[in-house]
């Protein structure tokens, strides 16, 4: 069973629909017992990093998450859930969870697309991910696959944690983390078959860890 972390800044239902479609048992929950019993945790997020942090800290979920990550519970952060794993976000000068070293920055509107036109912010639409290191999440996903992004801030973790990059004016980190703790800036639950495959790969990894 995968737990989908329940707090007010999430797009839990769209993640749930995707997992239901894949036949993956799941539960939207903030209950520490259920989170601890789950094979893995999906940490979604929409909206502003500051609000998301407020929702997490007010319920003590920030400490709960950190403790589960220390216990090597597999976790997948999505969108704002990807950003607030870092130390800091420029959006409203927000201190974030500090689980992965790095920060989150606003896209520079002076950057240009390949055709010379300035980038439009938010970065909204379909884009590719170039893997910088191999990652089990991307197993059997073609390199030309595209994923759906909607965001104005992008993660900039410490170099060691960069897994994949996406070009939007310049290259930015769109996948970061380490084995068992991953964060994706795009929305796999809205990225068609490649996104569903990524969620399935995460679930497969969680089952492997459970059965190891």
């Amino acid at each position, binding site marked *: 069973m995968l737990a989908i972390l329940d707090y007010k800044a999430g797009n839990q239902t769209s993640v749930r629909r995707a997992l239901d479609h894949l036949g993956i048992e799941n539960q939207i929950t903030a209950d520490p017992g259920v989170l601890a019993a789950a094979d893995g945790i999906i940490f979604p997020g929409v909206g502003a990093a500051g609000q998301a942090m407020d929702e997490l800290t007010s319920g003590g979920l920030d400490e709960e998450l950190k403790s589960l990550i220390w216990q090597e519970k597999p976790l997948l952060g999505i969108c704002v859930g990807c950003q607030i794993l870092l130390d800091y976000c420029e959006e409203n000068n927000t201190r974030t969870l500090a689980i992965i070293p790095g920060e989150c920055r606003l896209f520079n509107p002076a950057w240009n697309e390949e055709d010379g036109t300035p980038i439009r912010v938010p970065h909204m639409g379909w884009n590719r991910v170039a893997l910088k290191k191999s990652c089990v999440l991307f197993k059997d996903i073609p390199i*030309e696959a595209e994923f759906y992004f*909607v965001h104005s801030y992008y993660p900039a973790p410490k170099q060691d944690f960069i897994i994949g990059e996406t070009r*939007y004016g310049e290259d930015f980190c769109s996948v970061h983390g380490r084995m068992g703790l991953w964060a994706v800036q795009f929305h796999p*639950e809205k*990225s068609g078959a490649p996104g569903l495959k990524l969620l399935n790969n995460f679930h497969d990894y969680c089952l492997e860890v459970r059965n190891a």
Partner: protein
Amino acid sequence: MLSRRIIPCLDVRDGKLTKGVKFKGNVDIGDPVETARLYYEQGADEIVFYDITASSEGRGIFLDVVERVASQIFIPFSVGGGINSVADMRAVLLAGAEKCSVNSGAVKNPDIISEGAAAFGAQCVVLGMDVKRVEKSDKIPSGFEVVIHGGRKYTGMDALEWAKTGESLGAGEICLNSIDADGTKDGYDLELTRLVSKSVRIPVIASGGAGNPQHMADAFTKGKASAALIASIVHYGEYTIRQIKEHISAQGVRMRMVW
């Protein structure tokens, strides 16, 4: 670099699919959920549902359609038609849509754009604009006027000004529909599309007039649109979305080709 998007638009009345030509003489052609799934499998980058239901009973059926679509397709989709308040927005977003499109509701009450953006984020709010060509005048210097009620009522607003106002109020995207081109299959109004695309920094979706894949390629290369809305060209099976994308991609416009 973002891929340019191909977005089929489904008009829904009382829970069933229709496609009108110039907003007149709609005929039922099928089930919106099944059609959406077909387009999803064919490689649509996004789907738009436009509710043209008048009754509140039909509205309930429509929300049910939105929920069923959300459980079957895993790409973004947006919903427009009859959205006049933040409560209307909330209802379609809760039913599973990513975005909602405000059109005449925003003309009557522009604050709905800023209120929607504050409540749900700018990326959720699409400003839909119906536009007609008129004589250039002091009031309409661009020669493009915003119209409502399917083109029957002129608003006295310049389309270019309204696009900029919508952007500054917090709209995340503009869906720009040419009433003159709609249903003609002669191509998008490229002059209008380019004018608006160049004067705002949010994505512009070209709408109205698509008759063949080259029209869409032109909307991207000449009109500078980020996305192209299509309807009858796919509803009646003249082209598949893959055929359209292959045609456009061959001209060096980046399309999402793996799905």
